[in-house]
């Protein structure tokens, strides 16, 4: 049983709660494998996708998850909403709640916004990415995928490569996989890896070749082009030359390594197409698993007593 009405971050979850979500997701994955992929579980409930930041993948995944659970779904995205008219965040959220939302899926460019709304709203708030804080469902679906492929997480050597500093996906994954007993290493330029993280018993490699050695799971992060020219790295070309995942570098990892990417990918920058589309890639399975994990989260939050 989950104890809080909201899913704000992995930081707020216990190991038991993470495992419960993953176990429940496995059941939903079965449902998704059937001809009739929908269950009536949450019929009559309303889900609002409140996205203050553009997103197609995550929003679509939540939307479909909500529909598979038989909730009604409203997409409340920024350009059409009154947010641009200067309405305050709290007012927007209260309006959405007044429409009868039971679940509010929120993405916002400012860290902590889901936490602020969770305090103000009776609805279950699910964090779909806040600033550079967390993206909990992505970490859960990654953990689910790893568990499915490797049959365990404890003791695995997992490398996260790229812009850790600005990545909520990396943060949530670090917390989640550490809680589940994996060993985490971070690979990337020093400007993109906060040195404070070393205090969390995490190994940091600035050299890609050294970092890839003996890795069981390789998580590549999207390099955001806007970081270039802001002093984080001089050019994507130089980034790619040093930290891009090429076939030669890839051979340094374990033979049964799996490669993950939260998407959208910059092919040829952080990852080459040969690897992204290759046999060790589980990138598309991550997408499928995302649905199951999000259904599990919504189902379990619906059971939290207020």
């Amino acid at each position, binding site marked *: 049983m989950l104890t809080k009405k909201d899913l704000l971050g992995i930081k707020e979850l216990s190991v038991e709660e993470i495992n419960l979500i993953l176990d429940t997701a496995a059941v939903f994955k079965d449902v998704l494998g*059937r001809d009739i992929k*929908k269950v009536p*579980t949450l019929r009559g409930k309303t889900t609002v996708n409140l996205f203050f930041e553009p997103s197609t993948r995550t929003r679509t995944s939540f939307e479909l998850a909500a529909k598979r659970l038989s909730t009604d779904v409203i997409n409340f995205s920024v350009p059409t909403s009154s947010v641009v008219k200067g309405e305050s965040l709290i007012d927007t959220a209260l309006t959405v709640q007044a429409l009868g939302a039971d679940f509010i899926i929120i993405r916002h460019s400012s860290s902590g916004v889901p936490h602020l709304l969770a305090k103000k709203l009776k609805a279950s708030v699910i964090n779909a990415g806040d600033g550079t804080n967390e993206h909990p469902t992505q970490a859960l679906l990654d953990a689910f995928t790893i568990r499915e492929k490797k049959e365990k997480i404890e003791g695995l050597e997992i490398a996260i490569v790229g812009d850790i500093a600005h990545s909520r996906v990396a943060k949530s994954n670090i917390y989640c996989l550490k809680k589940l007993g994996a060993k985490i290493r971070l690979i990337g330029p020093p400007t993109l890896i906060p040195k404070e993280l070393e205090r969390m018993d995490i190994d940091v490699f600035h050299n890609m070749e050294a970092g890839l050695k003996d890795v069981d799971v390789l998580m590549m992060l999207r390099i955001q082009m806007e970081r270039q020219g802001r002093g984080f790295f001089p050019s994507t070309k130089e980034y790619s030359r040093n930290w891009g995942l090429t076939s030669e570098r890839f051979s340094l990892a374990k033979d049964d390594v799996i490669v993950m990417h939260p998407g959208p990918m910059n092919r040829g920058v952080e990852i080459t197409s040969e690897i992204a589309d290759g046999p060790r890639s589980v990138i598309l399975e991550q997408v499928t698993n995302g649905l199951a994990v999000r259904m599990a989260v919504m*189902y379990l939050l619906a059971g939290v007593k207020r």
Partner: protein
Amino acid sequence: MSKELMNKMDIDRALTRMAHEIIEKNKGTEKLCLVGIQRGGVHLAKRLASKIKQIEKKDIPVGSLDIAFYRDDLNIRKEQPVVRRTEVLFEVTDLKIILVDDVLFTGRSIRAALDALIDLGRPASIQLVVLIDRGHRELPIKADYVGKNIPTALSETVEVQLVEEGLEDRVILESPLVPL
């Protein structure tokens, strides 16, 4: 206060009888499958399958069904039901499904199970086996095979304990203590 309604032997005899009834009514085991409702029903379905095999020398497929996603009381239950896997590893369309549960009470679990089954495919028919029918139906649902009919009060609870769950086979009626 608790009272034993059935012991190991009683349960076994009831299952044997129902296995015979199932074969008789269906004129053999053609197109037959057993689906137990998590969790008690699953154990009983497996036992019925082995009894049928003893009698007919035929293997019939057994599946397990979790009905958590189909319940109508998710909003009012004190505790959210634990979700278990539904494992029906065969195509149910055109099969005669023998649905197995331990206790038949209000009929709501069976209603949920019927919905869950229909979402898996289009069976030729669904028949219901229960070990205990304790009455108090709230829906127009009736079992085709009953191990034992037991009149109960609403305040009482019926518990089926099975060796598969690490207990001794028996059925117990729990009555709340009545103040003198």
